[in-house]
């Protein structure tokens, strides 16, 4: 098998995915190096969220290979997949907060398999994560009583609470005002430094991309069309790239 053992946290080779007759991902290749913040930009509907879901095994591609944290996602046993997922953080575009649980319970949910933590330690982690996103006083609120932006920040807190080795953020700043968006972008960087985590950040937000990216991939119609730093992409002659990246 041509799966070179590298230090890459994610490596995807020739991944194809169709929904019916609709080709969503076309022969995608992707690597994420340790400690790197990789930003993926692209127009709405080009397949960014689907790509992120493939990486954590929520969606199965039709062909190709996906290695995450040195495991092959497509051939892994269910129990091992669950163990692997506990080392990965995933921020859903929709937030996906649990309606039936309050904020504290939402945040504690990913910790339920961390048996080494007692009740008090979990409570401290929850409080710490809430403080991170500036919502410490909403501890006992229900998700339905929060605004869209607050829900997004709670979802972000839930994503990082397990101190993941790899984090996938699906549009972390959409729906937030510019000030909060900037705070979140700075939070993403501090997480990168503090947890030494690698991240895939999916976004259309130029400010967020510019602040957080070590490297940017531009996606169009299910394929990557450009790669580089923000400054490099600004020089690009490709119209689709110019439309997304400008000063």
């Amino acid at each position, binding site marked *: 098998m041509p799966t070179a053992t590298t230090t890459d946290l994610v490596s995807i080779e020739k991944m194809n995915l169709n929904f019916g007759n609709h080709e969503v991902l076309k022969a995608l290749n992707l690597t994420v190096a340790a400690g790197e913040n990789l930003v993926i930009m692209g127009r709405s509907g080009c397949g960014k969220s689907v790509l992120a879901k493939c990486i954590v095994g*929520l969606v199965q591609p039709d062909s190709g290979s996906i290695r995450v944290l040195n495991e092959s996602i497509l051939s892994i046993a269910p129990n091992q997949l669950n163990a692997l997922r506990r080392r990965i953080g995933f921020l859903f575009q929709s937030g996906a907060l649990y309606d039936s649980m309050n904020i504290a319970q939402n945040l504690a*949910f990913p910790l339920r*398999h961390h048996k080494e933590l007692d009740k008090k330690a979990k409570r401290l982690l929850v409080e710490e994560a809430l403080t991170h996103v500036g919502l410490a006083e909403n501890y006992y609120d229900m998700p339905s009583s929060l605004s869209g932006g607050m829900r997004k920040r709670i979802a972000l807190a839930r994503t990082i609470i397990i101190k993941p080795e790899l984090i996938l953020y699906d549009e972390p700043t959409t729906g937030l005002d510019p000030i909060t968006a900037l705070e979140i972008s700075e939070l993403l960087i501090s997480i990168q430094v503090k947890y030494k985590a690698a991240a895939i950040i999916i976004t259309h937000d130029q400010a967020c991309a510019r602040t957080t990216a070590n490297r940017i991939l531009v996606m169009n119609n299910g394929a990557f069309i450009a790669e580089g730093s923000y400054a490099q992409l600004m020089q690009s002659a490709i119209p689709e790239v110019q439309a997304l990246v400008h000063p």
Partner: protein
Amino acid sequence: MIPTIGTAIKPIASKVISIYKYLDRSIHFTLQYTKAALAGPYEWNELFRQCFIIGYQSLPLVAITGLILGIVLTIQSRPTLAEFGATSWLPAMVTTSIFREVGPVITGLLFAGKIGSAIGAELAAMRVSEQIDAIEVSGVNTYQYLIAPRVTATITMLVILTIFSMAFSMFGTYLGMNLNGVLQFRIFYVQALAHISFIDLISSLIKSAIFGFAIGLIATYQGFYATKGTSGVAKAANKSVVYASLAIFIIDVIAVQVTAFFR
């Protein structure tokens, strides 16, 4: 274009494939539930929470329905029995039909409506808003956390509430008897239970358990595999009720044959 064998077969083939996929998925789902329910580890908190939601909240409905059923069956059967001068058979006749058939089936249908739609809609809403995906991504087994507690709670609570329903129906029957003159409860009780055997009770409760299994499994399946969008939630709730009610009648027909064999 001249139709070739290929173009004629294509729609049939895709239909066969989709039926096959549906069956494959249902069997997989049932096996996963069975595995989660038998092998554990159990989500005790979730199980108790579901038992509370499912059982406690259905109790008033089941009790009132049972009571009214007892009264109505008694009043309606009286004239027929009176024609034969056999009104003293009334308690036994009504109670037997309630224990053997009406109690389990009516409680089952109430559950299919109330619990089936609730579970179907709840899980479908969770699917549509990506909450089920979020649970999976946390490395939590959704069969253990979402499916097993709901199905097991439906089975347990349907059996328990069927017993409640039978008790309330008996009380309703007693009230119905008392509309015409006073009948001592002790006498009524002896008359009513004279023809109920242990097999009647056990087979009814086993039947209820199977109803509960069917309702729980159908509703969780419909919710779990709901399609996206608000209409997906409505569809899941609707299908849960329709398929679960149908399943109850089908299981009932089979159960009648099986218990007749043992009687």
